[in-house]
């Protein structure tokens, strides 16, 4: 496959069967390999779409500074696109993220402003909104509320999946900004209405949830509950265990959030087996394992890894 530039090569990722993890010949798992994007994560799709839309509306001119709250991957994608297109980039990221994320952001030229580890991404969002007010010339694309985020998946990820797997029965992805689930979910509900859309949601350690009032919680503006059929909470231990299963059973080196997604997919797969139904379950591989090597997630004692992840934003 030939492309004229790196940005044109975003998307078009392979769908790969997971024959060893699939519980029966009639209940099959399929992995959408989003780690094959230019910066190694699914976020290249929405990042590029948000920049393209802002450019087409005349809201960005070369030399402008982008500002974005991120737990890592979206910031990395935006930093890459910004470098290629001639923008500056400021990422607001919680301090308790893996060191690799900071290194990658800096490598693509982003400036990092750390937000407090207490309160997780909620705190990064709050801090970025403050910075946007203080710096009116910075352009915040704001992944949590930007329609181009879900539309990128409606226009690319969804059609790719259905073309490769016309018999799809379930789609499982991480919740995050909700962009992947909203975009792919809307596309599949329109074109294959019986497909069930399932969110895997990371359950973090206590520090991430913070001590602030319950009234100050955060739900992305993009979130539309009616698109989802189920939402499954996955703790670090199950996520790490499944991340390792991907490696040992299928030889796939994936990030920890993908382990959480696989865990939810296997719950659905087992239910299909128990109900005597056949199923084609597609799940998202959000990114590869490279950014998480320092967590020790791929070797050694699972309990120790889980303890280390306790106060980290691992997905």
């Amino acid at each position, binding site marked *: 496959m030939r492309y004229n530039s790196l940005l044109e090569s975003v998307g078009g990722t392979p769908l790969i069967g997971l024959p060893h993890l699939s519980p029966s010949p009639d209940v099959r798992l399929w992995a959408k390999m989003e780690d094959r994007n230019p910066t190694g994560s699914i976020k290249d799709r929405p990042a590029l779409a948000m920049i393209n839309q802002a450019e087409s509306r005349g809201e960005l001119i070369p030399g402008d500074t982008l500002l974005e709250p991120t737990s890592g991957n979206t910031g990395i994608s935006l930093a890459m696109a910004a470098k290629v297109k001639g923008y500056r980039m400021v990422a607001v990221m919680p301090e308790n993220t893996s060191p690799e994320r900071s290194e990658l952001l800096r490598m693509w030229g982003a400036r990092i402003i750390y937000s407090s580890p207490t309160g997780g991404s909620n705190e990064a969002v709050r801090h970025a909104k403050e910075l946007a007010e203080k710096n009116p010339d910075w352009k915040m694309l704001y992944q949590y509320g930007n329609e181009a985020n879900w539309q990128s998946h409606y226009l690319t990820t969804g059609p790719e999946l259905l073309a490769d797997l016309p018999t799809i029965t379930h789609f499982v992805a991480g919740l995050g900004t909700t962009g992947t689930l909203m975009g792919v979910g809307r596309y599949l509900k329109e074109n294959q209405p019986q497909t069930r859309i399932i969110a895997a949601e990371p359950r973090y350690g206590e520090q991430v949830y913070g001590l602030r009032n*319950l009234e100050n919680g955060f739900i992305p503006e993009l979130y539309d509950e009616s698109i989802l059929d189920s939402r499954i909470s996955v703790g670090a231990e199950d996520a790490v265990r499944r991340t390792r299963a991907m490696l040992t059973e299928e030889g796939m080196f994936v990030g920890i959030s993908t382990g959480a997604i696989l865990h939810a997919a296997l719950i659905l797969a087992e239910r299909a087996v128990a109900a005597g139904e056949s199923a084609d379950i597609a799940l998202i591989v959000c990114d590869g394992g490279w950014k998480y090597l320092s967590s020790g997630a791929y070797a050694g004692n699972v309990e120790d890894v889980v303890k280390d992840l306790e106060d980290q934003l691992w997905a």
Partner: protein
Amino acid sequence: MSVTVEIPTVLRGLTDGQRAVSASGENLAAVISDVDAKHNGFADRLLDSGQLRRFINIYVNDEDVRFLQGLDTPLADGDVVTVLPAVAGG
């Protein structure tokens, strides 16, 4: 029958610092009432006019109750109810 209710940090002031409490009830609403009877104010922090508050997520055995039967979600002995504030990802 008895279920375990996992309490988020921000509500532990109501449960004398306990991370989890035992409760009984045939569905989620009954279990919340049961916890509230022992730890006054609990229900009020979770519910507003009888509805689950917007920024609160409750899971029964790891599944969000908004996609089960909400407050009517039936509970069985040994079930785990987890209460968490809504957080962002991305």
